[in-house]
C-alpha cells in the first residue's frame, strides 16, 4: 500500500559545538504511517524531532510538509501546521488539574467547562481514561502522559511525535497506548515514534529509520526483521549478552524491615512499610514506573534519609540512623539516578567527583586533609577499568557525555569493594555497548559476593541481571520473587496493572 506523503526530510544537518547531532538525514513519512526513529542514546533522534517540532533549527537541509516547504521557527508554528509532540519529560503543573494544564498549552483555550467536556470526549474516543478535574500531582506517570497526548489530540494533528513514550508505562498501559496509536493511524494521523525498544517497534511501526551517530544507517520494515537484527543495525556491532556467574547464595548482607519514610521531595512518594533482604552474591531487581518511590528508596538506603536504627541493617549492623559517610564505612555504597547534581557535581573534576563518595572506603583522607594524589590514582583506575572516554581525570564531569559519566560513576561505586551496592537506574541514557558493560560488572561484583540492589524502569535489564524481583508501587514494595519463571503478565500485575482504569469506568458511568 502506498500512502500519500506527509512529511519529507532531506539532507538535514545539525551540529553543536564539538558534536554533529545529525548529518545529512533524510526520510519520509506517509499519512497515517507509524514511523519509527530508532537509535541508541546520543544517535541524534531527539535533535531530529526537535527540528521537526520547531524547537531547533537545522544548519542545512530541507523539510516539506504535504509538498509545501516546512521550516517552523517555533513550536507554535509547527502546531498550527498540524505537528504535535509528546515529550519524554512532561511539562505539567502538579498543582493544577488536568483541564487547567491542557488549557495552559493552548493558544485560545475555550471556557473550562467546555474544555473539560472535550477532554472527556477525546479520552473516551481514544480509550485513554482520564478525569479532567483531577490534580496532576495525584496522577501516575502513565496518566500524566495521557494528559500530554490528549493535549495534542485536541489540536487534531496530522503528525504526532512521541519521544520514548513507554519508558514510564507498565506493560498493560503500553497496550492501551498502542491501541490508541493504531486507532489514530487508521484515522490518518501519522506517528513518528522514537524508541530504542525493538519489540515495541516491531509490533507497532510500519517503517523504521535507523540512526547511528547522527547518520541514517538503514531503513527497514520492522515486522520483517528480528529484534536482534535491528539492534545490530542500531549499534553497528554484534551484541554480547552478559554472562551469569554461578553464585552461592550467602548470608543476608542487607536487611530492610518495615521501613517507612515521608518523601523529602515535593509531590514525592512516601515509602510505606518496605521490607526485603538481599543475600551475599544476590542481585535484587526492583522494578516500577517512575515516581513510585524509587528516588526515596535510594535516599533511605544511601543514608540521605534516616530512620530508626534497626530498619536498615548492613551485614548485621543497624545503620538506619546513620548518614551516608557512616553507611559507606559499614559497607554500603549507593548510586543515585540523577548524574548531574546528585551522583556527581557537574562543575567539579573527575578527581573531585571520585573523592565525593570514595573518600571513606578508599582511605583518601588523613587528619581531615584530602589525599589528592591518591584520589587521582583512583580516578585513573576507574577511567581505565571502565573505558571512560575523557581527555583526562581533570576535566569537569559535565564535559563528559551521559554514558561516559555514568560509566565513571558506576566504576566509582563498584570499585570500592563494598559488601552492599544499591544502584538506581544503572544504564539510564547509556548506549547499548556501555550498558552491557555496566551490567556485566554488576554481575561480576555479585559473583564476588556483594549483595546488589538494582532499581530500574527497564524490565529487560532487570530480568537480565537479577536473581529476585520485586516491584515498587506507590511507595510499597511487593514481596521479592525469584526472577526465573516470571512472565511479563505477572510482572505487569505486580506493577499495579493499568493505572487509572477505574477512573475510566467512573467517567463512562
Amino acid at each position, binding site marked *: 500500500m502506498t500512502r500519500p506523503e506527509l512529511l519529507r526530510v532531506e539532507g538535514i544537518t545539525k551540529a553543536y*559545538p*564539538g558534536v554533529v547531532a545529525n548529518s545529512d538525514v533524510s526520510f519520509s513519512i506517509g499519512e497515517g504511517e507509524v514511523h519509527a526513529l530508532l537509535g541508541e542514546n546520543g544517535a541524534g533522534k531527539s535533535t531530529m524531532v526537535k527540528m521537526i517540532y520547531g524547537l531547533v*533549527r537545522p544548519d542545512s537541509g530541507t523539510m516539506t510538509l504535504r509538498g509545501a516547504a516546512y521550516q517552523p*521557527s517555533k513550536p507554535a508554528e509547527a502546531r498550527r501546521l498540524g505537528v504535535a509532540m509528546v515529550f519524554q519529560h512532561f511539562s505539567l503543573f502538579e498543582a493544577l488539574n488536568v483541564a487547567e494544564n491542557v488549557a495552559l498549552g493552548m493558544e485560545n483555550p475555550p471556557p473550562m467547562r467546555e474544555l473539560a467536556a472535550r477532554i472527556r470526549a477525546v479520552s473516551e474516543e481514544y480509550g485513554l481514561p482520564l478525569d479532567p478535574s483531577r490534580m496532576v500531582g495525584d496522577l501516575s506517570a502513565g496518566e500524566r502522559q495521557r494528559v500530554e497526548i490528549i493535549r495534542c489530540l485536541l489540536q487534531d494533528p496530522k503528525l504526532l511525535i512521541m519521544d520514548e513514550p513507554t519508558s514510564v508505562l507498565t506493560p498493560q498501559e503500553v497496550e492501551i497506548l498502542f491501541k490508541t496509536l493504531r486507532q489514530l493511524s487508521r484515522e490518518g494521523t501519522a506517528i513518528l515514534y522514537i524508541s530504542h525498544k525493538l519489540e515495541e517497534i516491531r509490533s507497532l511501526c510500519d517503517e523504521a529509520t535507523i540512526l547511528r551517530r547522527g547518520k541514517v544507517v538503514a531503513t527497514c520494515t520492522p515486522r520483517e526483521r528480528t529484534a536482534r537484527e535491528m539492534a545490530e543495525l542500531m549499534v553497528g556491532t554484534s551484541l554480547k549478552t552478559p554472562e551469569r556467574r554461578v553464585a552461592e547464595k550467602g548470608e543476608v548482607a542487607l536487611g530492610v524491615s518495615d521501613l517507612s519514610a515521608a518523601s523529602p521531595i515535593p509531590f514525592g512518594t512516601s515509602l510505606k512499610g518496605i521490607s526485603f533482604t538481599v543475600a551475599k552474591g544476590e542481585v535484587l531487581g526492583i522494578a516500577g514506573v517512575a515516581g513510585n518511590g524509587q528516588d526515596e528508596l535510594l535516599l533511605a538506603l*544511601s*543514608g*540521605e534519609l534516616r530512620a530508626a536504627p534497626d530498619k536498615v541493617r548492613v551485614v548485621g549492623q543497624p545503620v538506619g540512623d546513620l*548518614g*551516608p*559517610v557512616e553507611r*559507606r564505612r559499614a559497607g554500603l555504597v*549507593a548510586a*543515585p539516578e*540523577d548524574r548531574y*547534581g*546528585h*551522583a*556527581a*557535581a*557537574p*562543575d*567539579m573534576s573527575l578527581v*573531585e567527583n571520585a*573523592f*565525593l*563518595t570514595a*573518600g*571513606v572506603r578508599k582511605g583518601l*583522607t588523613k587528619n*581531615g*586533609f*584530602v589525599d*589528592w594524589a591518591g584520589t587521582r590514582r583512583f580516578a585513573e583506575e576507574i577511567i581505565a577499568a571502565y573505558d571512560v572516554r575523557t581527555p583526562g581525570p581533570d*576535566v*569537569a564531569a*559535565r*564535559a563528559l557525555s551521559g554514558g561516559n559519566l555514568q560509566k565513571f560513576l558506576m566504576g566509582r561505586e563498584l570499585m570500592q569493594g563494598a559488601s552492599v551496592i544499591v544502584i538506581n537506574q544503572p544504564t539510564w541514557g547509556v548506549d547499548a555497548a556501555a550498558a552491557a558493560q555496566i551490567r556485566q560488572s554488576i554481575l561480576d561484583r555479585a559473583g564476588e559476593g556483594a549483595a546488589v540492589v538494582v532499581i530500574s524502569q527497564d524490565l529487560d535489564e532487570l530480568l537480565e541481571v537479577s536473581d529476585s524481583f520485586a516491584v515498587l508501587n506507590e511507595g510499597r514494595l511487593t514481596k521479592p520473587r525469584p526472577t526465573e519463571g516470571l512472565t511479563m503478565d505477572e510482572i505487569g500485575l505486580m506493577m499495579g496493572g493499568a493505572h487509572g482504569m477505574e477512573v475510566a469506568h467512573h467517567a463512562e458511568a
Partner: protein
Amino acid sequence: MLRLEKRPTPSRFWLYATPPVAVILTMIAGGILFAAMGKNPFEVIRTIFWDPVFGEFAFYLRGQLLVKAGPLILIAIGLALGFRAGIWNIGAEGQYIMGAIIGASVGLAVFPTENRLIFPVMVIAGAFGGWAWAMIPAILKTRFNTNEILVSLMLVYVAQTILAKASTGFLKNPEGMGFPGSRNFSSYPAAQNAELIAGTGLHWGGVAALVTAVLAWILLTRHQAGFQIRLAGQAPRAARFHGVSPARLVVLCMGISGALAGMAGLFEVTGPAGQISIDFNTGYGFTAIIVAFLGRLNPLGIVLAGFLMALTYVGGEMAATNLGLPAAAIQVFQGMLLFFLLAVDVLTNYRFRLAVGAH
C-alpha cells in the same frame, strides 16, 4: 544577533581575565561619570589609581593602603568561604561592630592593668563577638529556615544601634568630658594594636589577614571541609549524598565569617580608629562583599582585590579632598566595579555566539 551559549567547561582564561577587564570597564564608565560632573576624567583616575602608590604623598598613602586592605581582606575571606558554600552572610558589618564592642569591652574592663595577655584575650573576645552575632542568622536559618541574607543584613542595623548606645553610654570615656566615644586605646599600651613597622601601616590585623588568606587557601584546596564547602555551593544534593549536613555547614561558615569580621573590628577599633565611637565603622563589612567577588572568592585573589579596593578608598579620599568630588561619586565608582565584575563574569561559563539566520 548575539546569543549566549554555555561553555562545555568553564573558561580558565576568563576566570583570570574577568577582574582586570572589570577594572578597565569601571575606569571607562567612571571616567564618563566624572566627565559628566565636569571633572577631568584622566586626572581623577590618576588620583585614584596612581597617586596613592607613586604620587607626591605616596610615602604616607602606601601605609594607608595596608591599613584599609587588612580588614577588607580579613572579612572578605570569611565571607568567601560562605559564598562558596551558597551561604550568604551579608551582615559582616554588624559582626564587625559587635566584635569591636565585645573585644573593646574586655580591654576597657581591666583598664588600666598592664599585662601582655590583655591584647590576645581581646582579639579572642572580638572574634567571639562577631561569631555570636553571626550565630543568630545561622541558628534561625537551621531551625526555622529563615533567610540568612535578610536576617544578617537587618542585624547590622541592630548592631549600629548598640554601637551608638555603647559610645554614648556604657563604654563612654569617663574622662572624656562628655564627648561620645570610649577611652582611646592609643593611651592604653596593653590593649593597643600599634603599627608594627613604622611607616608601613602594618598592624596585627594585616598580619592576621595575610595568615588567614594562606590558611583559607589550604582549607579550600587541601582539606575535606573545604571540599565540602565547594561541593555544597555547586551541587547541594551531591553534598548531601557525600554526607555533608547542610545545617552544620551553615553554622560553620557563618561562624568563621562572623569570627573573622569580629576580629577585624577589634583590630580596627584598637588600632587605626583608636576608640569605640558612634561611627568608627566605615562600611568595611559591606565593601568586603565586593572584595570577595573581585577576588573570585579565592583567598589569594582576595588579597589582591583587597589592595585594589583599598586603593579606591585612599585614592577616592584624595580625589574628594583635592578635586572636590563628592564621596557618593566614589561609592558609585566602587559599586560599578562589582557591577562590571558580575557582568563580565558571565563569560567564564558562557560565550557569545552570532546566531545566524535567527530573528
